[in-house]
């Protein structure tokens, strides 16, 4: 098998501050056409005495080379498969980047009067409607800036719903396979988090929920398909149980990419859910955001939506409405990560109903295909048909001492971004692989061939895996040292930059 990457033309590049040379400039400021003022005289002690701290002095060429070189040190979807489970690293169409930069979107101001931003308000209204149809929810807010803020918003609505009924519930149930954001979001709302064990088949069972359910439980948070890539097939009876005890069901939409046009959370009994536009709806992940985390609700929760909400104006068109007396309040300084909303809207329009369904079909087919190819060489803790992702483990390599971390680092040597590792926590040594629909058969085969070769190598030559990666600019990094002796900013050493 030929490697997917070879030693290339790679540059060393110091920190900006080490490149700094006194007097260099990368951007000229426009000439003043008004008189300059004496800042000390005007602002007194509030004005700085010293020069601005913390910034380097560089030319434009310095800056361009610096960040271009840095960029070459990153793995990225545009370079190859990025099978990070639960992150849905699908291809991000270039058109969406272009439309988000149109001056009418990128140059719009959140406090312009509504009649001056009708194009955007119409887009919001359209996107809310499309997300409602896709999810089977009744109303959608686009405001939350990421999935975790969506969770926070959703659980706030749950709390507001109960409180309005004079019902002060204390607990939120969270399955043991859930993302860490779920318990953290519940705790931020003042709830006690109670873990729900998943069954031996990796999914939730009604009895486990029934056993914990009662008048004290505000909600169950559930991710479907779950983080093992398995569809929660008891979801309907589980929702019934929660509802019977007066609770609500929160749906974590991180894995919605499996269900587009196939099944809808709203039809399963989910009361409130978030969408990750940067996952399912293809807005780029940006090295850690910005994302967007719209939230959909069923009608009984609509009065609690965060303000403002997009409404039709009596005089025609749309406006943002703050007058929602039972609202949980505002979550964002404006109306969320609007640039991401524009991209997601363009994505949905491009694909249409059929294209979205095709996405999920291909995403699920790709995950099952990879699982079929890898099943014999790797341990498969829950060996059953999966949805959009599959979870393997390092259990078969116990004797040779090869771990999931080793396998991941060896993948890097072959030019692949590793899967999500050591998550979900219910699988020791988990490797969570989500190929997405973007990968062709050839791409999947090459990736599977590589993993099979690594599995073989794990038995024959474990040291090669312990030493990986060896083809990267840097070898394995010492994370323990970073945490024990935190160095969190540049501090000039003995001889600073000239």
């Amino acid at each position, binding site marked *: 098998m030929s490697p997917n990457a070879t030693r290339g033309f790679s540059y060393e590049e110091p920190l900006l501050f080490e490149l700094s040379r006194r007097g260099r400039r990368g951007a000229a400021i426009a000439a003043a056409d008004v008189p300059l003022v004496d800042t000390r005289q005007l602002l007194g002690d509030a004005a700085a005495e010293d020069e601005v701290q913390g910034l380097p002095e560089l030319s434009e060429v310095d800056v361009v080379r610096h*960040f271009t070189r840095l960029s070459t040190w990153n793995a990225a979807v545009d370079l190859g498969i990025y099978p990070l489970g639960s992150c849905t690293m699908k291809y991000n169409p270039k058109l969406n980047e272009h439309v988000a930069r*149109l001056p009418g979107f990128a140059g719009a*101001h959140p*406090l312009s009067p509504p009649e001056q931003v009708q194009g955007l308000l119409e887009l919001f209204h359209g996107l809310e409607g499309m997300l409602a149809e896709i999810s089977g929810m009744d109303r959608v807010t686009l405001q939350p800036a990421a999935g975790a803020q969506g969770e926070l918003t959703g659980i706030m609505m749950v709390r507001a719903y109960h409180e309005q009924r004079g019902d002060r519930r204390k607990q939120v149930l969270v399955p043991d396979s859930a993302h*860490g954001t779920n318990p953290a979001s519940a705790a931020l709302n003042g709830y006690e988090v109670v873990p729900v064990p998943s069954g031996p088949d990796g999914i939730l069972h009604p009895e486990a929920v029934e056993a914990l359910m009662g008048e004290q439980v505000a909600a169950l948070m559930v991710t479907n398909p779950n983080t093992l890539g398995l569809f929660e097939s008891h979801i309907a009876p589980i929702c019934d149980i929660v509802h019977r005890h007066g609770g609500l069901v929160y749906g974590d939409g991180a894995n919605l990419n499996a269900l587009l*046009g196939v099944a809808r959370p709203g039809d399963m009994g989910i009361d409130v859910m978030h969408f990750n536009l940067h996952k399912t709806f293809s807005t780029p992940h940006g090295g850690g955001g910005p994302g967007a985390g719209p939230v959909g609700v069923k009608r009984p929760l609509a009065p609690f939506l965060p303000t403002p909400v997009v409404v039709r104006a009596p005089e025609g068109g749309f406006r943002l409405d703050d007058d929602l007396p039972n609202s949980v309040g505002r979550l964002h300084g404006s109306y969320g990560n609007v640039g991401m909303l524009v991209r997601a809207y363009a994505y949905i*329009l491009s694909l249409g109903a059929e294209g979205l369904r095709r996405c999920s079909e291909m995403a699920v087919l790709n995950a099952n295909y990879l699982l079929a190819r890898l099943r014999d060489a790797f341990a498969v803790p829950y060996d059953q048909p999966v949805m959009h992702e599959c979870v393997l483990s390092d259990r078969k390599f116990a004797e040779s001492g090869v771990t999931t971390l080793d396998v991941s680092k060896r993948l890097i040597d072959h030019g692949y971004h590793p899967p999500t590792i050591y998550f979900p926590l219910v699988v020791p040594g988990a490797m969570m692989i989500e190929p997405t629909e973007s990968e062709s058969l050839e791409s999947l085969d090459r990736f599977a061939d590589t993993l099979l070769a690594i599995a073989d190598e794990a038995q024959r030559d474990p040291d090669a895996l312990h030493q990986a990666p060896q083809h990267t600019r840097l070898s394995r990094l010492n*994370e323990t040292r970073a945490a024990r002796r935190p160095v969190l900013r540049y501090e000039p050493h003995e001889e600073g930059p000239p």
Partner: protein
Amino acid sequence: MLEGVGRKRVEELFEPIPEKLRLGRALELPASASEQEVLAHLGELAARNENASQADWFLGAGTYAHFVPTAVDALASRAEFTTSYTPYQPEISQGTLQAIFEWQSMTTGLTGLQVSNASMYDGASATAEAALMAMRITRRSRVVVTAGLHPHSRQVLDTYLRGLEAEIVTVPRGADGRSAPLAESIDDATACVIVQQPAFLGCVEDLAAAADAAHAWGALLVTSISEALCLGLLRPPGELGADIVCGEAQSFGVAMSFGGPHLGFLAARQKHVRQMPGRLVGETVDSNGQRGFVLTLSTREQHIRRARATSNICTNQGLCLLMATIYLSLLGPRGLRELAQLNLAKAEYAKARVRETPGLSLPLDAPGFNEFVVGVQGSAATALARAREQGIVAGLDLEAFAPDLSPELLLCTTETSSREAIDRLIAALAGDRA
């Protein structure tokens, strides 16, 4: 491929989904559209939004129209940055990690503090997270907030604190536009005092006095920066006693984009690092002793600590952080100072024109940076409409934001406001028709 998974039809893959839960119909969405069609439709929607490239622009109030050097988007658009994710695998994410480390270094310098994280969603949520952080550090639950905090940030703060047993106390605005003295509002239950700099109505607050007042009771001073460019001109808040400096850095090369995606930031003192929300990048070495960077101190975070994490934040505003890092690299210390001075000079010029123009007034005496309140005759809405007819977006009608000041406008001048445009603005506000 279907054969490879032992299936005949794609539909069979969805067997784990009970039949009654399947949709069984097509989604009611438009049919797929070509790139050409999507672009035409989006172009039409975009054309129906007023934007800063087609008007003389004086609207700020938390979102600022600054010039962005071309290299910022050219570099930040590189797919190696845009189509990567959180740098969980440091060996193949050094580009993102080093840029975050550089951002942390810049923001600690600008704020006068020792640690800074890898971004928050926006200035509003950064301020709310700062309050939560102060509550954890002090184990107190009372938050004192000046009226100068942006009303939307205040609303977000209220929202974040609603589920916790917290009390929020507001300090009113004084006559000159700065906050009234804080001391009376602070007590031994106070976790922090939040002071926005500059205040929503543009006035520069006395942070040293605020720090003294807060520290006298063992409370922390949180400074929320709404217009990050002011850091080019003002003394770093950390030097004046601020314990947490947070806020919005959209001004550093990020598009207005109707308010998002923007760039929340949060910096703090070294001793409080373990109470910080969000991602942190630290320096380390690889197995050959070469310098590299990794995500660190993750035991604070949701994916490790779950319900006991310092925050639920996961995905943040990484690409906006990159834009700001590139922007600040291009400007450098002298460029940022000059730009800030230019912004101030434009505002002072506009204020001087207001003073000499009959019918216009400056109701607040305190010095400001690049924003200020102007009193107009008649109604603010009429003045705004009159200006708009002449292609001028003349600021924010304060009626909904500071009813006591009506009829008045909050105006912002930046380097994009030419002297001629300011002259036209003043004439339009005074009632002259072009």
